[in-house]
């Protein structure tokens, strides 16, 4: 009794093939008991309604039987995480890890347009955007900027480029840039929660609970 006891078969083959067990019940059972990767492979992840629409009864019965044969129940998958195979599979695609969207409420930033953009080209999630920006604290302290002092130097430096909407920058930027159009210069006032929160950035000019103000020029979208 060292490991979690495996779930027991709830239904016999006859019961499964017959009419008495609705697809949804079968899906619920499998979702509750199978390991994440098993569900993923059998395309059984997600909202039960949607799965029921796409999966045929035969497929579900197959999966159900497969589950008990392979014993790939929940809780057996953790060891696989540390294996190279899993790691190789995971690192194929760039991983977008998003922080949990907490129950929302109003957006934690405001945008004021300083110079209008073309009002037609807006970045989508995953697009690469390039911008010039200056960041200040509420008291006016400049904590970051990529705009060089002289116009001549501006030719030598490049604007900051990154893929927007993927959680690689603070949330205020991810959300703010998605509503800017190409060529626009805007003032983004971002509350601490969508910036660096209660921690601030230790060893830097950004204190805890700091509201950040950015002047951003969206130069290009790719």
């Amino acid at each position, binding site marked *: 009794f060292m490991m979690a006891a495996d779930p027991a078969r709830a239904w016999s083959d006859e019961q499964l093939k017959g009419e008495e067990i609705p697809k949804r019940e079968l899906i619920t059972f499998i979702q509750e008991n199978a390991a994440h990767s098993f569900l993923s492979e059998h395309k059984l992840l997600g909202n039960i309604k949607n799965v029921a629409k796409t999966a045929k009864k035969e497929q579900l019965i197959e999966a159900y039987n497969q589950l008990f044969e392979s014993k790939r129940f929940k*809780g057996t998958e953790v060891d696989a995480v540390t294996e190279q195979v899993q790691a190789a599979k995971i690192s194929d695609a760039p991983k977008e890890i998003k922080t949990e969207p907490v129950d929302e409420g109003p957006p934690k930033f405001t945008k004021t347009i300083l110079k209008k953009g073309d009002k037609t080209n807006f970045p989508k999630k995953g697009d690469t955007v390039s911008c010039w920006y200056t960041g200040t604290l509420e008291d006016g302290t400049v904590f970051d900027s990529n705009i060089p002092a002289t116009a001549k130097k501006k030719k030598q430096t490049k604007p900051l480029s990154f893929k927007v909407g993927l959680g690689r920058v603070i949330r205020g930027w991810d959300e703010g840039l998605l509503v800017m159009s190409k060529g626009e210069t805007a003032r983004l006032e971002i509350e601490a929660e969508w910036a660096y929160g209660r921690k601030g950035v230790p060893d830097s000019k950004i204190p805890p609970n700091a509201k950040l103000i950015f002047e951003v020029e969206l130069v290009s979208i790719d």
Partner: protein
Amino acid sequence: MALEQLCDVVQRCQAIKDEGFSPEDYDLFFTAGRTCLEQGNSAQVLSILVDEKNKNIVRCMGWNLLGPLVQILLKKEDKNLPHCHAILSHLLEICSPKELLVGLLEQVEEADTGSIAETVTLLLKPLQTVLLRLGMKKASSVGMALSTLLSQVARLPVPVTKEQEEDDVFGLCHCCTALLQFVKPFVEEVKEGVKDNNRISKDNELRVELLKFCMKSLSKPLLEVQLKDPDTLLKSPLRDFATEILIILSSIGESLPDLLSRNVLKRREVPGFLEEEVRYPKESLACLSHLLFVDHIAVDIFPAVLSPIFVLQCNMEYIELLLSRTEESHLLKGLVLYEKSLIRVEDNSLPVDLLELKTFFSVPQNLVKVMTLCPDQTLVSETFCVEVTCNLMWFISIVDFDLSLLTSPQRTKGLKVFQLSIDKFNTEAKYKFFKGMLKTSHHAGVEGYIIKNIKNQIDFSLKPCNGNDWFLGKHLLPLLRLVLCLPHGPETDLLQNLDRIMESLNLLRYMLIRDKEWENETGIWTELYKIEDNYLKPLRTGLNMSKAHYEAELKSAKENKKISSKDSKASVCTVTVDNEKLPNMTPEMQIQVLQSAVFTFDLIESVLTRIEEIIETKERPLS
């Protein structure tokens, strides 16, 4: 005389057309020239070399004199210096740049450890002059020069204290500063190409050589250096070197954020992928990360808008690399980088999908390895094998590894960071992490620590408004089954598993007291009969057996001692640890060891009894 010989060969060669000099001519010129220089006749040699009539001869043969010339210059005898410098300048102007390069680099390569710094300092300007003469074709030569120079400089001892850095006895700081001057014109050339819309190709040779140089510097010497902050050391050549390297990277078109996130975002389908790997060695990037986030180097050219979780994700790759090293300095760097990356993140914020990334599991496992190995790695013992003279082998396991009693500062810090990493996970991630660690760590101390964390999570979850599916409700029980078990049933070595057993008993006792039977929020009460059968009863059995065993041994050891008290210094038994014999254990020591084992069992028993009492009270029908 050498001078005459030199004049002779030169005169003879003046007559030879089209530079058709023979090997003998070369030899004679070289030997005579060298001797002249060594004998102090540098002025005469100079006048021969600058003579217009000898231009072709000098162009072909002159560079061979570099060797002896450099040796003399290094000796720094005032008398000859001005002339020798003049000779050098002349050769640099006249001879073929490629040949000069070979000659100069040879001198650098052959410098012995004691003269590396001086040689490098002497030859950097000449090398630069020669390389600039190569014009458009300089890239591969620049690369060769930088590689040779760095290899030598990397051999210099790295200053550890601030005084050592100030004194710079071995010249590392001086060389680093000089190297920056050396690369300046090449960096400018690439920068020119990068500016405007005249995008320089990523594969531009000179750019690639500079990139290689920066990457190599990051590895050696920068990874070995412990930089001092401005408060400790105001003017630090090494800090300046590090800063400049990062600025150079940025100037030649390598975005620092992109460098940082390479390992996280790379795609395997990119053609020439392997070459990319070689161009951006992970170790160098690890150093880069440490410079940015621990030493705060070049912060003003690094954007402040990156999401802390993304930064952590990027850094995990480098932390993993550093924590897998054996050199203590690298381990420490990994540890501090981990800490600095974690503190930027809010508690309870890391989502569970992060655990699908290999590094989020492997790093804590590496950390545990760091904590459980002694710093000098000579003894990893947790068991003493005591051979008693009467041919019976008793294995006494004494767990000297108690996580709360770590003495090495590194291990203490390691533990702190380990706990920090746990605190940053959100609830579901904590659950998954604990489960994973319990299944894979196979170390009683670590398991005990995890179990204590589980207890804290349960406690937290039981508080109003903190309820969750993971440490209460249906997921808790599978986790508890991993906690409340004996790995080998009643035969489990209780001493070796002490930490784990104590923590799991504490957990159980806590739950039985805190979670009222009629509420049963954790489900423990419905599970209890299973726990009794599968854990408590076998534990009780094992405990009783072990106690009886050791008490008997203790008794006989005490008797033995009485008998041989006259020879109390004679050892009763030999002790081997990891197949190495320690100085023999005396009877007193043996008794101490056995006694402490018995005390340990008492300890376990006290908690076990308490639990049995609680259960009995609840099960007794109320009158």
